[in-house]
């Protein structure tokens, strides 16, 4: 795991400032979606080797939720974006 993460708002910060929620790929289904879709959203996770997308929370910093794209093999971090930006497609 990375030692330092570059928060888009706060700059380079130690990993101790963050907490990791996990996979950022599944999207919350519509309320009326099938039980299978909800089951998949809540329980089913890919376990890829290599590039992953995760939700990180900058708990001890700006308290923004971030989407961290990184490689779980090489530990390289490709991008860190504000989750709201990722969700809406515009700047937070």
């Amino acid at each position, binding site marked *: 795991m*990375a030692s330092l993460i570059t928060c888009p708002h706060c700059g380079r910060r130690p990993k101790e400032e963050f*907490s990791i929620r996990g996979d950022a790929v599944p999207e919350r289904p519509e309320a009326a979606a099938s*039980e299978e879709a909800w089951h998949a959203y809540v329980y089913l996770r890919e376990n890829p080797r290599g590039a992953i997308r995760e*939700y990180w929370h900058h708990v001890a910093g700006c308290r923004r939720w971030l989407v961290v794209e990184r490689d779980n093999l090489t530990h390289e*971090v490709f991008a860190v974006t*504000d989750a709201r930006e*990722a969700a809406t497609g515009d700047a937070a």
Partner: protein
Amino acid sequence: MTSSRIANVGLVDHSRVVKFSFDGRTYKGFEGDTLASALLANDQMLMGRSFKYHRPRGPVTAGPSEPNALVTIGKDARTEPNTRATVAELYSGLVARSQNAWPSLNFDIGSINGALSPMLGAGFYYKTFMWPAAFWEKVYEPVIRRAAGLGKAVMEADPDRYEKSWAHCDLLVVGSGPAGLMAALTAGRAGLRVILAEQDFRLGGSLLSETAMIGGVSAPDFAAATIAELADMPNVTIMPRTTVFGWYDDMVFGAVEKVQKHLAVPSADKPVERLWRIAAGRAILASGAEERPLVFGGNDRPGIMTADATRTYLNRYGVATGRKVAVFTNGGSGYRTAADLSARGVNIAAIIDSRAASADFAPYGVRVIRSGSIVDTKGGKRLSGIMTNRFGYDEMIDCDALAMSGGWSPIVHLMCQRGARPVWSDEAQAFLVPDVGPLFAAAGSAAGHATVSECLRDGAVKAHAAVEAVGRLVGHVNTPEVEGEYDPSFAPLWYVPGARSKAFVDFQNDVHVDDLALATREGFGHVEHAKRYTTSGMATDQGKLGNVNAVALLAGMRGVSPAEVGTTTYRPFYTPVSFGALAGTARAEQSRPIRTSPLHGWAKKNGATFLESGLWYRSAYFVQGEEKTWRESVDREVLNVRQNAGLCDVSTLGKIEIFGRDAAEFLNRVYSNAFLKLPVGKARYGLMLREDGIVFDDGTTSRLSENHYVLTTTTAYAAEVMAHLEFASQTFWPDLDVCFVSTSDQWAQMSLAGPKSRAILQKLVEDDLSDASFPFLAAREVQLKGGLIARLFRISFSGELAYELAVPAGYGEAVADAIMEAGRGEGICAYGVEALDVLRIEKGHVTHSELDGRTTADDVGLSKMMSKNKPDFIGKRLSTRYGLTAADRLQMVGLKPVELDKPLKAGAALLREGVEPSMTAGQGFVSSACFSPHVGQWIGLAMLKSGRERIGEKILVWDAVRSSEFLAEVCAPVFVDPENLNLHV
């Protein structure tokens, strides 16, 4: 005397005598000595006994890779085992003891293991102690533990302070030898922020023992001048006594600085060690190279050390390691050491050169045995002779020390800690650093260069690249001329054939060539297998000295190239790091952040006993008068709350202010119950679910104005709920206009409960608190007498008439004092979380004992909290799936033991009456239990299969842990005021 100090030679201060002791005997050394150099100067070559065979051992190096000279330094609580004497800085009053010898270093009974060595080969643990199994714990392990091992840790607490600190730089230079100094100088002159870290207490690395002239001055003088220039640069930080032990992601390096380990009595104002995390833009590894021992019969006798170590003791410390020193070499290094020894008047017994010919010059009159080898050695606590062999002819040569050189291995560890493997080079006959990208480069002999001039130049070149990369101009740095260099070439010699006694590969772990051969024969030839099978490269040593030899030997035995064998995995730490340094200030009370309630002082002066609750200290109960047990205090508090009134600190609840046009809609989506129509000035109990339909947390939320709410969470889930709300807002519904901030710390919050609470509170509050104007669930700002604005919530956890009053934290203690004063006539008492727990169990209110991550709202009787009308809320969809609505789920019920004196305990299992107790027959469990002074017996809340249908049933409470078994009656989970009459008075 065979090893001795040479007057006025070296960098030690001959005018400053330092007294120290070793195994109870007092010795004298000089300032600038290591413990090893000072012991050698006193002719104490024997410094330890080996791990397995208890063989007598002396130092084989003069640096951090030392496998043999491990000693225990310090006294009492400051005792530190397994310290390498070769790097231990000598100080006045140093007390050192040898290890792994009994009764003494000179006479060690354990050395009989050496005689038994045929039985103690590689893998002997696995083979010998297989049977009988029971013997392992009782006989074998204790015996082995006593016989083999290193130093012993002391049991006293460490009295010293430790710290951690961060450092930041453009360029980190690891090592201050020729390459490191030139790299630091080049980058420093260009204005980069440079950190130069050196594990030694003296900077200069190999320059300190170098006899070549650099730029017309001696190598140590050149080093001193360069260091002086660096020290004057404000952008350069020099860190002596600092070992960079680990390379982590994103160019973060771990280092440990020995701040005060060289002082007999450290100052209490400073740490003894400091753990550094260094965030570097770039780094240069200038860690040098390790000279390899030669693997020949009897190569472990005290007095046999590397040529480089011999030279270091001579040139840096002014210590001759013997009176008559033999040299065994496969290259120029041996000749260089011989020349230095000879120049200092030390006799050279002979140079045994494994090569048939070379261009190296032996000192005048010194005999050179070409194509020679050593096949055995003699001597007890010190070498007394070597058996040489040339073309099959033996010759015994007397000597009291031997300098050996088997070539050089770059010290590549740091660069290989993140997965990259070192790369074998046939040309260099060594493993070289891998390419790990542009940010981290090796320089000097760590990069495979051998001579001083090459190292100086390479340091400058590598720093040049770093300077250019950050867009700075490189200042003018001349690489000085070097005179008097040697020819560093050598011919590979991994194993000296014809050994007549054990030829050791890993000195620390007593691994010899036959062990590796055995491992290979038995199918453990893979380098990682061989390591475990033979223990080669294990323990504190981690193969620093012997690994490359071991790899090459395995390669030879398997008939492949060392490249194919590869190395074992390198991991941090390069050298051992103390637990103290890793813990830093995080000890005892400071081991984690402690949160203090604004009412802590109030609780304390009212006699509170505190309990840890997460990071908080909460008041558990308040002992009064003659109360002997906590139960007496808690019973009194509970009864008093139900009869009169009580005041409890609830400041630890999470408080979140929510603002926005869509705040109501947002709350409606995060709570399972409806929130759209909550009126201003009202509080509502809310339940939050996880997306899987299980209850997450509960609390009350109050609407303070149209678009302003304050939400409370449980103490335990305050942080989680805040993060949950932020996540929902930022990722699920970014279009909702809502924002939050935690105000948990702004408010001191206290619960005033009991039938007399209104009367008491009214004395302090300007606003009318009658039931008509401030009814149940009212929530609004009120003014206290004197003008202070507070928030008042009429909510109840106890089931009694109750209020929660929130005032700015700084006023909390004064307001609580005033309430106690105002309530004295009404019989108010302070009550703690234990009484609070009893009150809520009596009332059947849930906490996280019931909401344990497995329960649904319906399980705990809160199905009315599940809105049927809302289109969506977190947890809605999956809360209706089959598993969560099954009729045989565990449901919350009340429990009362049939016999009044039976104590009910949380965690006990519930079984049908009459069945044989077993976990498989379980019907549920007790989730909360207490003695209820109101009911007059122990009561509990329990999760029971189809529980609500089973009211009135007798059920077996089985507590296997506490060995109790009795019947209890299942009842409704409310033991007091089931009609809620008390709430609405």
